[in-house]
Structures are given as C-alpha cells and as structure tokens.
C-alpha cells in the first residue's frame, strides 16, 4: 500500500480527498470538543504506536518479508473512529514527512485501511469481544479487506484513463492482475496480523492483571 504518486488517476484521488477530508474534519471537531484532556495526546501516541506496529516484519515463504498493518489491534483497542484518525495521521506523516508513499495514495489508503479496515475489524471483534477467534478475525480482516479495496482501486485505473488507441494512462493492470497480486500475499500477512493481535491482546491483559 506504499503506492507512489503517478499510478492513481485524479478522478480517483480527488473525490477520495473530498470524502476523507469531510471525515477528518468531523473527527478533529469531535476531538476539539471533547472535554477529556488526554484525548489529543492519546491520539498522538496512538498514531505513533500504529506506525510502530507497521514496523513489525514477519518472514514469508520464499525468503521475503512483509510488515503487519496493526489495523485490527488499533480498531480493537481504540475503536474504529480513533483508529481511522490515527492511521490517517500515520499515512499523512509518511507521505509528507518521511517520503514513504505518495500524497495521491494518502486518501485511498486512509479510506481503505483506516476507515474500511478498522470498521470491519471492529465489527469482527464485536461478534465475541475478548475471544481469541474474534481477535484473530479482526486482525485478519483488518489486513485482507483493505488489500481487496486497494486492489480494486488500482485495477480500476486502466478503465479510467486511456489513450485513443486504448493504452492506459495510469496504473496499467486490471483486476485480473491486481486482485491476485495484492490480495494473495495479504492472506498470509493477515494470518500474522491475526496471531499478533491475539498474542499482544493476551500480553496486555496479563500485564493489567499483574
């Protein structure tokens, strides 16, 4: 999901900025109006921990590695609204300060990972709160569903912009390529995300009980 600039058509990233912008503004307004003094610092450190979770790498078959997304964990611990804001801030800082991922991919990532991913993960967790299987499902779905959304968005690009002779102007591959190429590895990453979500949840509960 570290898509550089130039792959996504303006017909996609501009409306995506519109939708994400409205949600960001509503989230920030809600944050400003909250009477709890710790709300803003909590969001800031949640952002930093969301970034730290994304640094956790796991080896994949074939000698490669992938990083977990931590979306399920963030959604379970913070709720989908806070997770959306925290993950959006991570993408904003990555795109504009750390040079990781393009500014045109920012709203797509925020909506796919931050909004859809955390909402699905939270819904999965709500099926049986605290149970290992619901935590695993939250971690797995929080990774796989955003991957499907991003694959659909990328695979849509050839239909959005093409020259008169049908040559693509942006990302050139359709869904037949993007869905297997992006979703299949994330099925594995999702398993790792699910295991990490269950294990770290247990560790947090054990520390609290101690």
């Amino acid at each position, binding site marked *: 999901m570290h898509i*550089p600039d*130039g792959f996504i058509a303006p017909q996609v990233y501009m409306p995506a900025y519109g939708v994400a912008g409205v949600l960001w503004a509503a989230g920030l307004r809600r*944050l400003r109006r909250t009477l709890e003094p*710790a709300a803003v610092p909590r969001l800031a450190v949640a952002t930093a921990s969301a970034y*730290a979770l994304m640094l*956790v790498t796991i080896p994949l078959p074939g000698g490669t590695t992938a990083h977990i997304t931590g979306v399920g964990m963030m959604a379970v611990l913070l709720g989908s609204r806070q997770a959306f804001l925290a993950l959006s801030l991570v993408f904003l800082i990555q795109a504009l300060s750390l040079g990781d991922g393009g500014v045109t991919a920012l709203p797509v990532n925020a909506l796919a990972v931050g909004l859809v991913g955390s909402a699905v993960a939270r819904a999965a967790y709500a099926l049986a709160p605290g149970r290992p299987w619901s935590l695993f499902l939250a971690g797995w779905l929080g990774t796989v569903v955003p991957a499907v959304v991003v694959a659909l968005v990328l695979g849509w690009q050839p239909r959005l912009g093409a*020259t008169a002779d049908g040559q693509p102007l942006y990302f050139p591959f359709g869904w037949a390529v993007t869905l297997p190429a992006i979703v299949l590895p994330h099925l594995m990453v999702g398993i790792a995300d699910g295991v*990490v979500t269950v294990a*770290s949840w247990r560790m947090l509960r054990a520390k609290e009980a101690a």
Partner: protein
Amino acid sequence: MKDRALLALYLGLVVAGSLVHDARWLGAGLALVILSAWRDAWPLMRRTVRAVWPFVTAIALGWLLVQRGDWRAAAPVTLRITARVTLLTMLAFRMLPAVSLPRALGFSPTLRFVLVLATSQLLTFRRLFTDFRLALLARTPRRVGPTVALRHGATTAAWFLRRAEHDATLMSEALDARGFFLDRD
C-alpha cells in the same frame, strides 16, 4: 505562510503532473527539478531511484509480459508511467523537506498539536523499534524463523501499546501542569 504556500504549490504541481500524459513534457519537468536542485541533484536522483525502482521495474516487466515481449508496443506506457512516477517522487523529495508540516497545516490548531506530538513520538518509537530488532538479532544465533518473529512482533506490539498509554498520560499531565487546557473552548 511560506510553508502553506509551498505545500499548496507542491500539491498543485502533483495534480498538474498527474494530468500530463506526454513523456516528453514529463521528462522536461524532470530535467527542471534536477536543475533546480543544482548541487544537490546527485543525492536527489539517487534517493528517487532508490524509492521508485521496485515499482517501475515491476510495472515495466509486467507490461512487457502483457505485450508478449514486444518492446515497441510496451515502450509508450512504460515511458509515460516511469517518467511520471519519477517526476512526482523527485518533486516530493525536492520540495517537502522545505515544508514544516505543523506550520503548513496550522489552519487547525488541533491538527497541528496532534501532528507535533505524533511526529515526536513516532520518531522515538522508530528508534526504539530498531533497538528491539537489533536486540533480537543479537540474541538469536540462527536466522529468525516465523515463530520467533511472530512472538517478537506480539511482544513488541504489546510493549508499544502499553508505552503509548503511559506516554499519553504523562503528556496530558505535563500539558495540564503548564496550563495548556485552560484556554480550551
């Protein structure tokens, strides 16, 4: 004001760059960015190539495969996409270091506040994460396998989440002690 104007200019150039489809114009834009960097042109080019090569190589090879190895048929799309991705990435590396993000996004005091706190914490967490990873490597005589990696990932995640809660409490107490919350509406 300067930061906001620079960020707006950068975003405008990104939109313009994504609306240009002629590889020659994109190449001219690339030359302009390189010339504008002057003495820093070489590090800028090196950083850009390092950032974009996995993507553009995968796209170029994949598209060549779709075109059944016909270089001539694959060249226009490959050139256009490579030139655009390289231009926009180089533009980001050229312009964004000059922009102070909290100042540029200062139209929302809440956003600026969160950004400053989040960035400082994020850089600290990144350093701590590197220390954790190096400690794992130093204590593992063999190559780190999936089980160890997952256990380490879960421990690290739990540690960061606990640390986050602790830091949030400390930060809000420090801000409260300095009267930060007194002027909140």
